[in-house]
């Protein structure tokens, strides 16, 4: 009895935590975990046209995918895409956030400008970029021709398509990363800067020794989120390239979409989803293991 009482007292936090987590847990269970388990279940089946499990095939879907050059290509494209977009987005956003963190007149205006891309849906921005990439009337080729450079088939050349999509993606994600990083910057105690400036530290020294370490929780967060998001890029692909040319932009999520919604192959689509999940999981675990160690919380 007393042991129970002791346990009861010791676990007050735990019981409170249940209450606080309950809404999230319920919603996640219904709208994320349940479908996820369904997905995992389906990945072991061939499905009929309406998406129901029809023939149990074990790991055949996975074996097929891992052996298929198309899927390998998808994975490669996805990897490249992540490499192209994540570092550049974060570095650019950090640069902008540092600029916009200065206390100057009218800085609110610039902050809104920088964060504006967050206010534009992927669909709308893709449409705009589609326009800009247009080989005949787009801005980019017009500029190139003004300077007499050779024209680039932005979205039609397999060499360029992924890069072009990456450029537009960087732009789309910039606003969000910017906003998060700016928030992080503004949370840094002003006294630390004061103190370091008195020590005679220059801008870059401060950046390296104070800003970045103090920003590390935010950086850690934005890197994790950006990685996950990059792995899941879909909208711009759908509008800009539809996975082409020559599959060069057929990122995994797009491939899942095509498999499920156009081809009605839920089995293989699920298998792809499971593989993608595992990849992201590994990357995120790595990120937590390597990254969070370098994060300085207050």
């Amino acid at each position: 009895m007393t042991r129970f009482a002791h346990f009861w007292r010791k676990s007050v936090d735990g019981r409170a935590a249940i209450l606080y987590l309950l809404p999230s847990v319920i919603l996640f269970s219904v709208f994320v975990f349940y479908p996820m388990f369904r997905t995992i279940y389906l990945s072991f089946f061939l499905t009929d046209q309406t998406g129901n499990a029809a023939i149990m095939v074990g790991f055949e879907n996975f074996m097929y995918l891992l052996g298929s050059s198309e899927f390998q290509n998808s994975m490669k494209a996805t990897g490249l895409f992540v490499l192209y977009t994540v570092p550049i987005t974060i570095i650019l956003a950090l640069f902008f956030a540092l600029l916009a963190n200065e206390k100057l007149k009218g800085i609110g205006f610039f902050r809104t400008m920088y964060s504006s891309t967050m206010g534009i849906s992927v669909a709308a921005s893709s449409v705009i970029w589609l326009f800009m990439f247009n080989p005949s009337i787009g801005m980019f080729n017009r500029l190139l021709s003004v300077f007499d450079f050779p024209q680039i088939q932005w979205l039609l050349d397999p060499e360029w398509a992924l890069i072009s999509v990456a450029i537009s993606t960087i732009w789309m994600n910039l606003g969000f990363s910017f906003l998060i990083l700016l928030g992080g910057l503004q949370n840094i105690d002003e006294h630390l800067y004061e103190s370091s400036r008195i020590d005679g530290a220059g801008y870059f020294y401060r950046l390296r020794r104070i800003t970045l370490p103090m920003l590390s929780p935010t950086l850690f967060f934005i890197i994790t989120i950006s990685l996950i998001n990059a792995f899941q890029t879909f909208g711009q692909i759908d509008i800009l390239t539809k996975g082409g040319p020559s599959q060069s932009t057929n990122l995994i999520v797009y491939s899942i979409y095509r498999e499920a919604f156009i081809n009605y192959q839920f089995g293989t689509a699920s298998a792809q989803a499971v593989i993608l999940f595992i990849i992201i999981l590994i990357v995120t675990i790595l990120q937590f293991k390597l990254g969070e160690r370098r994060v300085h919380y207050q």
Partner: protein
Amino acid sequence: MKRVELIDVSKSYDKQVDVISNINVTIEPGEFFVLVGPSGCGKSTMLRMIAGLEEITGGTLKIGEKVANNLSPNKRDLSMVFQNYALYPHLTVQQNITFGLDVKRMKKDEQHKKAKEVAEMLGLTDYLDRKPRELSGGQRQRVALARAIVSETPICLMDEPLSNLDAKLRAHMRSEIRRIQKSLGITMIYVTHDQVEAMTMGDRIMILHEGKIQQIGKPIDIYNYPANPFVATFIGSPPMNLAKAEFHETDKQLIIGSEFKLNVPAEEIGKLPRTSMTIGVRPENLYPTTPETKEEDTFHVEVTNVEILGNETIFSFKLGKEEWMAKWGGQWHIDIGDSLPVHMEFESLSIFDEQSGELIKKTIDYGKYVSNKEVPS
């Protein structure tokens, strides 16, 4: 070694009220300059302006010979101990201490040597690898101090650097800071609330009140000859006792707080104003009566409060509406409600003009000489 000069400097945070107004002072190279004043009078603000952390709303600040109003802090070549420490939470004590050295690209092993030295001096050796949040309050303050000390800049600003240390350590730090300042010839601007620090460390003290200079001078001069009642009550602990007084022409007596009557020596009469005035007497100049004390100089007071500090005893009594305090050396057996005979001398009075607050009559120099020592010429 640099001069710091403030010419007509003012500061306002909200563009309406000046928290600092028209400060004119020159701090000489190598001087130890102490800044005191009540809480909220603008001491930190002044330091922060000198450091370049706050904008100067009016006037000119010169560092060395240059106008520095718009010089950025990192160009001013000074160090500062912040009132709230401002330690880098993500760096260890060691890294916090060497931060400034690293900025100046000092060699790593030299940095370590210096850090070790200063840590030794401040009793931080055991904590070099800790993060600030794992330190006690006093330890944090010492880290902040260490950071300023290692940097050895020509100007050093310290904002209550010893407030969280115990008396013993504080005494030690006092002499260490003074020693370092002297040996390196640092120009030091030092904010403190501690009477002992103010009296013993500074070459000069400046007393600030509501953003205005009250007095600047040598500590002992300020103690002996406070420029106005504010300074009189601010320097010295317990503070100088003040009361209104009037000179009674016929009796040749000073009537203090309508109660005490004090004979005025004939030669002093001419110097006294004929209207009412404010007189002040330090608690230690309210003596216990001895058998030799003349009856007419003795006042009987009723004790309202007693504090025995070990080596001295302070008791309070009422004089009119004022609460006066007397300080007697040693431990006295006094109880609240006791009626005590107290003795006071006209020589030890400070007299201020009631309107302007100006000091009209100084106390005599109570300087004592050791019997076997010769009186200097």
